[in-house]
């Protein structure tokens, strides 16, 4: 385990990629957790985190000062990503008997974008992991059929990565416009 917090009441645990399977199995089988639902599986690309134009003090184009984030009443500031790794794979679990949710996060380095697959534990992981591979290019070790799901096989790159331009088109037919 790398870090844990409960910002805004969402219990969050960050674990090392090596211990993901172990942690997930514990969450599923331990009577204290009983996380029988894998509700959601996604990823976040932290490459541009805090570096977006609007996040800085002034506007790049006009030099107009940008006011700082508002001071909303908050118990404590959000601790932020636990490591400097580019990606984080985010799992949301839900326990039906205990009515409890847990978020599990796994940092993934850009140089080795690979984590263990959770398909043996939850069937729902199958399509979710395919989507993360499609959108972020993170591989899942032990996935039965890791291929693109939303984009077509001819598509190059992973569109939800922060360095993929939002309107870079790769049409199958017709002009690029």
């Amino acid at each position, binding site marked *: 385990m790398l870090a844990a917090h409960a910002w805004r009441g969402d219990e969050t645990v960050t674990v090392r990629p090596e211990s993901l399977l172990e942690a997930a199995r514990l969450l599923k089988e331990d009577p204290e957790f009983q996380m029988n639902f894998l509700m959601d599986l996604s990823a976040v690309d932290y490459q541009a985190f805090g570096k977006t134009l609007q996040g800085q003090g002034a506007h790049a184009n006009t030099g107009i000062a940008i006011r700082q984030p508002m001071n909303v009443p908050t118990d404590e500031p959000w601790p932020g990503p636990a490591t400097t790794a580019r990606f984080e794979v985010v799992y949301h679990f839900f326990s039906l008997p205990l009515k409890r949710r847990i978020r599990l996060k796994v940092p993934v380095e850009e140089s080795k974008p690979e984590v263990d697959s959770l398909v043996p534990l939850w069937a729902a992981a199958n399509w979710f992991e395919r989507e993360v591979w499609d959108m972020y290019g993170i591989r899942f070790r032990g996935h039965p059929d890791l291929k693109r799901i939303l984009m077509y096989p001819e598509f190059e790159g992973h569109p939800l990565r922060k360095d993929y331009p939002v309107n870079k088109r790769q*049409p199958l037919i*017709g002009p690029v416009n």
Partner: protein
Amino acid sequence: MFGSQNFLTSKLESAIGWARKYSIFQYPFVTACCGMEYMATACSHYDVDRFGAGFPRFSPRQADVLFVVGTISHKMAPVLKKIYDQMTEPKWVVAFGVCTCTGGFYDNYATLMGIDTIIPVDVYIPGCPPRPENVLDGLIKLQDRIQAQHDGKPIPRPDPSERAFTV
């Protein structure tokens, strides 16, 4: 000498135009949100059958108007082109909703910026989604177009001073 035959054919052509415009067999290529308004137009409240277009054919071979309803993504584009190619002449295409007209506000890597980049379009019905009244207006404009083609008249264009919503 002044060809009664000519007279007859032109009248016949008009009659065919009349028959065609009131018996549109449409192929609804429904992909997205606009499909809900397409359903609303087709059902009792707005009743597209009053205009002779109430009979959807789900085979491109038997349809003569292709209603492209909803966003077309790059993944879907080859399918749309294939369907269009499979339709027999005469055929018309209606772009239903702003995504099919221009791509709408989905200006990103996944979507096609207007179906007219891959197939010719006869009538554009913008709106996100267009109201059923708007759809019926577009349908009537398509009927005018069909009739004009058979009458040998120039195809009606919108009066630029009017700035009509449907072309």
